[in-house]
């Protein structure tokens, strides 16, 4: 398993687009800092609630725009390349000749993608928090949407919880993208299928708006009680997509 993981990491970073994509992402974080600084630290909980940023509450607002970049560009690109591109181009044949369990192969791929986006999410939180502490007006306590007043430590906990939930949404997108990669014949269809799912979800239920405006939905969930639809739909999506992925992946006819 360890060597499988290592090989997967190595191949992921051998693709130039991985490092370039991550590089562009960090460049976007810098742009986001600049943008927030230029507009004087005003952002939005949602369309009708604007908010003045301060040293504690800055971090979540980075995901308003960066979430789109991750959901629609980085995740589909990396996951489709890993789950479909390698199979499509025939690169997977070379290690299908080894007696590896298919499940292990899937698990290795999944772990690599999940850990990659965990690292990105965590680093975004870190940079955003540091930026908020240094550049934004200093306060001792602050509130978020419909919360009582939080001090520095509680505020940090809130932002961590926020980023944790964002990460769960990212995991769901990874699940959907992997599913599309497994059932679709080529990378183009897999990528477009993923995008169609993320956008088409809104037509099915308004609940799925969190794929598009991720921060507004999570503020809403953390601020108002009784938002079970969010948790239930996420859990449902996560479990179903991963069960189907493993099921189809292991039963797929690889050879001829």
């Amino acid at each position: 398993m360890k060597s499988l993981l290592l090989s997967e990491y190595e191949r992921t970073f051998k693709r130039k687009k991985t490092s370039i994509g991550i590089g562009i992402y960090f460049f976007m974080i810098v742009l986001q800092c600049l943008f927030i600084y230029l507009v004087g630290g005003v952002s939005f909980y949602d369309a009708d609630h604007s908010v003045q940023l301060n040293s504690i509450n800055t971090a979540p607002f980075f995901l308003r725009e960066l979430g789109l970049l991750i959901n629609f560009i980085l995740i589909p690109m990396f996951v489709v390349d890993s789950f479909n591109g390698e199979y499509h181009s025939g690169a997977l044949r070379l290690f299908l000749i080894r007696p590896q369990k298919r499940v292990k192969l899937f698990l290795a791929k999944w772990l690599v993608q999940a850990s990659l986006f965990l690292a990105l999410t965590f680093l975004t939180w870190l940079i955003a928090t540091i930026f908020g502490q240094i550049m934004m007006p200093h306060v001792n306590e602050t509130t978020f949407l419909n919360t009582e007043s939080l001090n520095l430590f509680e505020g940090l906990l809130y932002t961590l919880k926020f980023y944790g939930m964002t990460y769960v949404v990212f995991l769901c997108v990874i699940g959907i993208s992997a599913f599309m990669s497994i059932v679709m014949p080529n990378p183009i269809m897999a990528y477009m299928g993923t995008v169609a799912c993320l956008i088409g979800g809104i037509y099915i239920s308004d609940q799925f708006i969190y794929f598009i405006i991720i921060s507004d939905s999570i503020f809403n969930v953390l601020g108002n009680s009784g938002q079970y639809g969010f948790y239930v739909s996420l859990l449902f999506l996560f479990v179903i997509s991963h069960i189907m992925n493993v099921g189809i992946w292991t039963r797929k006819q690889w050879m001829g």
Partner: protein
Amino acid sequence: MNKLIASEWERLWKRKAIWLLFAAIPAMVYAAAKYCLHQNTTVTLDFPQYTVMGNFPVLGLAEMLMTAFNLVVLVITTMVVTDEYRSGQLRMVLIRTHSFRQIIFAKFFVVMSFIFLYLLAYFIICYGVGSMMFSSSETYPQFYHQSDTTVVEGFIYNLKFYGLAFLTLVAMSSVLFFIAIISHTTTTTLGIGIGFLFISIAYPTVIGLFGQLVPNEILLKLYFTSLPMVQWQGLTFMLAESSSLLGWILLVLGCYIVLFQSLMILSTRRKNDTFI
């Protein structure tokens, strides 16, 4: 060259995805109609945003042009350029006495023909669905026009609107073709393409935030340097009775087309890696 175009045309229709995209038109029109019906509950009859049968082709396209149509162009471009070029299918065509550049421009012509047909089909289906789902009135208000238009005048307006929409898609295709030629894998093309769309939608919004600093006229002109914004709102501005923006937006579209066609010519010059 004619034979090359004929062969490209044939190979385009060999793909299942192309037929699927065509089959998706009724679904797209239906989704647009649902949205327009929802909009009708918020505006009254004397607003141009109120959908009747006569203006449904325009209102039903405005939302879709910026999103679905751009994605359709992106998918086709990725399939016929990046996928064929990088997977080695193009070698069969390159055996003949055509240069890589000729093949790319034949492809561009074929994709443009496809988009033209696609818009035409959308237009006809819009009239069909519009007559079923919306009330038809003799006259209705038109965007940026003083007096109401009749159904016949509206038809001419709709035709102009679709013509300009086609022009924006030509500009968009030029950009995406260039991206497709320089990308090494299909996922890169799709990623950069969607990134281009996002950025084009995002920067006018950012410009809007700094609206107090610059006079309104310049702001509008900057706003309409972005292709998706032209597709979304610029087309009605162009067809207004007294349009100050028509020349400007045509200039912007012309610049996009000239710049990216030149980049296509540059990027398809004789290279040694065609056969690697």
